[in-house]
């Protein structure tokens, strides 16, 4: 069931002001913000229990990403950016807090629901490409559509189109091992795009590429952004992050808006 809490705001009991009632998400943000927001993270923490010690990888993170934004999240290794990526990508669940993605409260979903929202709303681009081995570029790009139940003909057509957009029309039958790193990453981007997801999540997409291919990939993201795609780029590299409209720094599991890029209109909550 897809619960749209914005269409049906929950009433809050005001008769007992003493009780520490946590406000529903719908009332934490203004109507204007809600209508534009694609992602709202509210008080997200992720705690890993490692025996006696518990590690707080994310600590009370609040973040709003608007539709059409190109956001870079920058941080050194161990800062919690991978954990944030996993939670944004619905691969992992927060220990505390509320996550609203494209009108859906993620914490209400079971495992199948998470799989469904990953399938429908999220396109991943990975540092190590993560293409299916011994599988042609075309089939790699078709696979997300297959899990959506799209028919064979339609998904082949859409996959061809996505690969053509990335200039890979002559590489349809090539397996990943026969492609260069830059080409593999472009196949990866085609795979992320083919489902027309609400958001593209790129985790160090240039990390394994030479500077030329890396620049190419960044250029692709800029073009996608220009055509209205919402992109979240996670990187440790400030130069890569510079391509984004808005940059957020993460350190020790806490976010801080970069003053230089604050003009893009993103809102820290």
């Amino acid at each position, binding site marked *: 069931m897809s619960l749209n809490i914005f269409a049906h705001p929950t009433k809050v009991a005001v008769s007992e002001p003493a009780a520490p009632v946590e406000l529903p998400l719908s009332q934490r943000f203004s109507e204007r913000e809600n209508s534009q927001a694609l992602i709202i993270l509210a008080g997200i923490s992720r705690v890993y229990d490692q025996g006696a010690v518990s590690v707080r990888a994310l600590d009370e993170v609040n973040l709003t990403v608007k539709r059409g934004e190109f956001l870079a999240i920058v941080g050194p290794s161990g800062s919690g950016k991978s954990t944030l990526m996993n939670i944004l990508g619905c691969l992992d669940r927060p220990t505390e807090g509320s996550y609203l993605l494209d009108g859906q409260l993620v914490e209400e979903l079971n495992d199948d629901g998470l799989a469904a929202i990953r*399938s429908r709303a999220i396109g991943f681009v990975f540092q190590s490409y*993560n293409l299916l081995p011994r599988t042609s570029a075309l089939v790699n790009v078709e696979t997300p559509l*297959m899990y959506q139940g799209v028919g*064979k003909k339609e998904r082949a057509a859409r996959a061809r189109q996505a690969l053509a957009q990335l200039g890979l029309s002559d590489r349809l039958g090539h397996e990943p091992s026969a492609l260069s790193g830059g080409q593999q990453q472009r196949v990866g981007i085609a795979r992320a795009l083919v489902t027309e997801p609400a958001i593209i999540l790129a985790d160090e997409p240039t990390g394994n590429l030479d500077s030329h291919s890396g620049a190419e990939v960044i250029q692709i993201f800029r073009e996608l952004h220009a055509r209205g795609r919402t992109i979240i780029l996670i990187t440790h590299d400030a130069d890569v992050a510079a391509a984004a409209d808005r940059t957020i720094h993460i350190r020790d599991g806490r976010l801080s808006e970069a003053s230089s890029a604050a003009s893009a209109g993103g809102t820290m909550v």
Partner: protein
Amino acid sequence: MKPLDLLGLALSRLGTGKLRTALTMLGIIIGVASVVALVSVAEGATAGVSARLQALGTNLITVSPGFTITGATRGAGGSATTLTLADASALTDLANVSNIAPEINTSKLIMVNDKLTGAQNETTRIIGTTPGYLNVFAYSLWAGAFLNQTEIDNNARVAVIGATTADNLGLNAASLNSTIYIAGLPFNLIGITQPKGGSTAADDQVLIPISTARELLVNTSSISTIGISASSSEAIAAVSGEITATLEQRHNITNGVDDFTITTQAQLLGTASSVSDVLTLLLAGIASISLLVGGIGIMNIMLVSVRERTREIGIRKAIGARARDILFQFLLEALILSFLGGLIGIGMGVLVSFGIGIYAGWGFIFNPLTVLVAVSFSMVIGIIFGVWPASQAARLDPVVALRYE
């Protein structure tokens, strides 16, 4: 996700690792092949035994005398002398009796000449009987003629000898109408029977008219056994009942303790088939163990495969695969492995059983039921041993799986 896509996914994976696929299937192939071959061997052996039992006679019922009780000692079965020729002729009139052959058995020296010369003599079984014998005990003539009623009526000194006896005495078709000597008395050789096979004992005998035997060789009014041929195999039970009733009446038996024993071919066949059922079960059981081992082989490879493909599973989950998509993908792989292995195993099992059938001489026996059971069993094995690895794959945490190197 569509079922056909799942099938394609499983098939393409098996196609990319052909050697591994073949080796994984080998266990199931051997298991199914041995089930099919061993069951076929057991059935062939059963058919062979049945054929030999059938050769003993045509819907045969044998009546033997009971035992004697001397003081407090009970004699062996057949020791009594309670069956008479009159009993035999009374049984001739029963419904559904097609032929009857009373026998008087003894053992005498046979000679080809009237003196003991060289190898042309033998001590063997002499059976005094009637023309019905040929049909009752499923013999056929190789040369000459069989005993006829006139010869019985006239106590004629004629003899029909078995194939082995003919061999032993050096007699052949050219020897017909020559004289042979039984216990020193001259008999005219009128026929030689076809060899029956099975045991040579059945072919090493001399048949003479029962009247002649009583007159010249065995001075008794009792007879050894009565062989009766029922008109059909279904009638055997009914005829046995009538024989019992008739003989009890003739022997004035009212307490149910009969002085005769009735053995039917059905009883023999029943015993033989229960023996062969045990044999079949035993062989199938042994073969099933190899099938089980084959299943464990599949599980082993699938577990390795899940481990190797952890990252792939993570990728699939990240791009939208549900746990059950992963589960079915791996389960289907195991199922296809065991199904294909089962099919190949059937082919090999049929070949092997064909070879054994030719070698053992019972021909080729193909039982579709065995094949069906073997394939279903191998697929059940595929499911049982595929479920665990597949659920391991389905339960993988995508975050952990994506990090897996």
